[in-house]
């Protein structure tokens, strides 16, 4: 029934049916109403190429191990590869799914259609062992090259207690060390030209300016970067695997640590997906509180960016001012949530507590004082001529390149693309707010900073509207899957008491289905594709983070520049490694 509904209302699906024939596809109903089509791998590249003009961005690509799933779609096989595409003008998404059976885990590569599929396909291979035929460089990306097995398969152990105790003998150590050796030939690099040798510099994973444990191997001619190979995975903590063990409720604190500068912004993407699966409607007050806290964390994240950006081009002082502001901001977060960087404060169906008495004054003092301080920083950092010299025209890409490489958020808006999920496809109540979407035009390091600085001001504006219009009412939904449920009712009737007991001890059992709700997080589009099999844990948790594709395109924009430029680019991209490696 839903198949018919979707195909009747969705022009893209109609178009696909008309072009390739309806028998090629199978529609899968999803609670988030994103058209989800199954198709045969033989048709995949053709269909994707056809969709590319309409859907210029490959938002995500990931695998699902279907073997233990009870509520499987009839079209599925042992493993599924999901292609999640995004259209900007109509703000539409579409999912394509390809099923592959165990003995024949092979899908044609889509790197030729969407360049950013490169890393995603490597990740799917790393985690599920799905081969992508024709992929230029199919090797492990998040796990070390010596890893045995594919970590997100259902038969791969998730805990150390399920494995043999770890040991490292001399032979194994030698093998591990050997595997770490950087061989330029593996990456298509020459060691020397006819008259000169290149120097290969290992930047990171421990380096002051790579913002975490990010390694990038550089091929240098003097100080000029000829080519580079980003190497990620040092911060991989198996967050997606953990999603399959933790209850829906107890996974919330893990999300905090994905984009660890984003705090509750991560909770937002996660709980909204769960609520879509469960069909929970969140009361207005909770919605506004969520937006207010999320925007507060956007400011916090951008302040860290602002300070470290200036610091990475060698300006020593600004970071201290911005951290002082952030400290005051955390004071407010602490007063409201009890936590600071990782409050884990959003709940399925609402937020953890109501706002404390006196929160308005704290918040108002903060947002009143910020604009003047931002003006001051503008003069100190952004208007500084040396800072401009270091960043204007450095690390430039245009809108088309950004779309090809899956760049979202401020980094996309810096190229002149006037697009923001909060405004163009409002989620969680953003449609009630009045704010502008800052856009720059050159797509260079400086513009990426300009956009973020202006976003701080816009976030202040949104918070002020929250302050002035905070609705009264409950901060949690009355829905039975709200976790923990409103306590008052539990002593009234046995039904609620049972729900309370079950939801708190075992965790809520979320109805079977699949959903993802993309949100405009601090660094770009963040979403949690959650697969529920009707149990108390997620069957598959896929985290789409903005930083992952952002890092992939570093080699492209840094070729021919110098090491200091590379540092400026890294600073301007604004990533955290937990957001990349998960």
């Amino acid at each position: 029934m839903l198949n018919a509904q979707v195909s009747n209302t969705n022009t893209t699906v109609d178009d696909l049916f008309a072009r390739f024939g309806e028998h090629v596809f199978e529609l899968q109903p999803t609670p988030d109403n994103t058209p989800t089509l199954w198709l045969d791998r033989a048709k995949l590249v053709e269909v994707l190429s056809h969709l590319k003009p309409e859907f210029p961005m490959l938002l995500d690509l990931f695998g699902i191990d279907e073997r233990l799933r009870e509520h499987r779609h009839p079209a599925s096989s042992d493993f599924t590869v999901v292609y999640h595409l995004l259209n900007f003008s109509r703000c539409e998404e579409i999912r394509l799914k390809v099923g592959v059976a165990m003995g024949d885990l092979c899908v044609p590569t889509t790197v030729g259609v969407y360049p950013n599929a490169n890393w995603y396909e490597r990740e799917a291979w790393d985690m599920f062992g799905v081969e992508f035929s024709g992929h230029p460089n199919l090797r492990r990306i998040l796990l070390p090259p010596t890893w045995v097995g594919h970590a997100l398969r259902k038969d791969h152990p998730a805990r150390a207690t399920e494995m043999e105790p770890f040991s490292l003998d001399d032979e194994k150590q030698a093998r591990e060390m050997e595997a770490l050796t950087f061989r330029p030939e593996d990456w298509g690099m020459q060691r020397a030209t006819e008259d000169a040798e290149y120097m290969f510099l290992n930047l990171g994973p421990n380096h002051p300016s790579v913002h975490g444990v990010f390694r990038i191997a550089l091929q240098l001619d003097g100080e000029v970067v000829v080519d580079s190979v980003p190497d990620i995975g040092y911060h991989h903590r198996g967050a997606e695997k953990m999603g399959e063990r933790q209850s829906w409720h107890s996974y919330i604190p893990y999300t905090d640590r994905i984009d660890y500068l984003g705090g509750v912004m991560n909770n937002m993407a996660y709980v909204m997906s769960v609520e879509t699966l469960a069909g929970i409607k969140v009361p207005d007050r909770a919605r506004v509180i969520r937006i207010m806290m999320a925007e507060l964390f956007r400011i916090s994240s951008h302040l860290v960016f602002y300070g470290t950006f200036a610091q990475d081009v060698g300006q020593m002082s600004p970071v201290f001012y911005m951290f002082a502001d952030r400290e005051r901001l955390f004071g407010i977060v602490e007063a409201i949530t009890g936590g600071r960087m990782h409050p884990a404060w959003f709940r399925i169906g609402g937020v953890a507590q109501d706002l404390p008495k006196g929160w308005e004054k704290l918040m108002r003092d903060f947002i009143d004082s910020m604009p003047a301080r931002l003006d001051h920083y503008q003069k100190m950092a952004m208007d500084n001529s040396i800072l401009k010299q270091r960043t204007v025209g450095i690390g430039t890409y245009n809108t088309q390149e950004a779309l090809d490489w899956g760049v979202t958020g401020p980094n996309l808006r810096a190229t002149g693309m006037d697009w923001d999920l909060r405004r163009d496809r409002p989620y969680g109540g953003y449609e009630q707010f009045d704010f502008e979407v800052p856009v720059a035009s050159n797509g260079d390091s400086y513009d990426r900073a300009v956009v973020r600085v202006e976003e701080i001001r816009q976030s202040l504006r949104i918070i002020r509207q929250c302050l002035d219009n905070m609705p009264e009412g409950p901060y949690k939904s009355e829905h039975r899957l709200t976790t923990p449920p409103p306590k008052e009712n539990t002593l009234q009737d046995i039904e609620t008491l049972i729900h309370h007991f079950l939801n708190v001890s075992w965790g809520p059992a979320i109805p079977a289905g699949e959903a993802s709700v993309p949100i405009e997080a601090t660094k770009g589009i963040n979403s949690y594709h959650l697969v529920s099999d009707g149990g108390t844990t997620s069957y598959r948790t896929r985290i789409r983070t903005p930083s992952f594709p952002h890092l992939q395109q570093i080699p492209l924009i840094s070729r021919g520049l110098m090491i200091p430029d590379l540092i400026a680019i890294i600073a301007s991209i604004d990533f955290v490694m937990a957001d990349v490696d998960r």
Partner: protein
Amino acid sequence: MSDLGSMYFGLFLLLATIGGAAVLTWFERRLLGIWQDRYGPNRLGPFGIGQVAADMIKLLTKDDWVPPFSDRVVFIFAPTTIVVAMMLGFAVVPFGPDLYVIDLNIGLLFFLGMTSLAVYSVLLAALASNNKYALLGGLRSAAQMISYEVFMGLSLMGVVMLTGSFSMRAIVEAQADLWNFIPQFLGLFTFMIAGIAESHRLPFDLPEAEHELTAGFHTEYGGMKFAMFMLGEYLGLILISCMIVALFFGGWLGPFLPPFVWFCLKTFVVICFFILLRAAIPRPRYDQLMTWGWKYMLPLTLLNVILTGGIALAMKA
């Protein structure tokens, strides 16, 4: 000053400058703290001055490690060079009418020679470390020093022409009527920039460039050998400030207060200014620094030399 007297003064100077450099590490951190809305080291002793002693104990007791892949002799020799060269540079600084170690008739050239020697320290350290970051730091240092040495010397020629002598004492005495920073403002400007570059402090700390090259030329250094580089840097800062005072701000000249006090006060102000620069300015890129040096600074110094020479000649005629 008698030979014995200047020997004693030399000894005093040795201790005073090393002590001064040590205190300066604390002072700079406090000052930066004030400008950056934070405290800086304020725990140990009054105003945290005990930090100096604590740092010293830490550095002295650290493992004295030489990386096995380095060139051992040069690796150890390199950090001493900068300290020795900078200390020797102090010999010609006139702290008062009769307060100096030696009044060479080529005092200024001696100073330039000593600061040039200090460059070797960085280069040798970079080469001996056998480390890629150090090598890049060394490369930058070599390029930066060559470009900035050129106009560092030239920027002082205006002062020499006005005085007619290379003797530091004569230069200060010649400023009795008018301090050199007025007629020689171009010289002051260029010398100051060359001076920061010479002591490779932010914004011209490219050989170190923490954010790019981790620690640049001293990546492999630790403990006392690292401390020697720090000492050298701070000695360099003091020396350059002393020279700026002596060459452009009338040295010990000033009313009421004793000459030595005047000299120290002026030097203090210049040092504070250098610290302020560090707090305020980002680091230019290496090629931008070169462009600056050769395309703007060098022509400016040459212009200064021509103008000063022309005016001096005209006034004589």
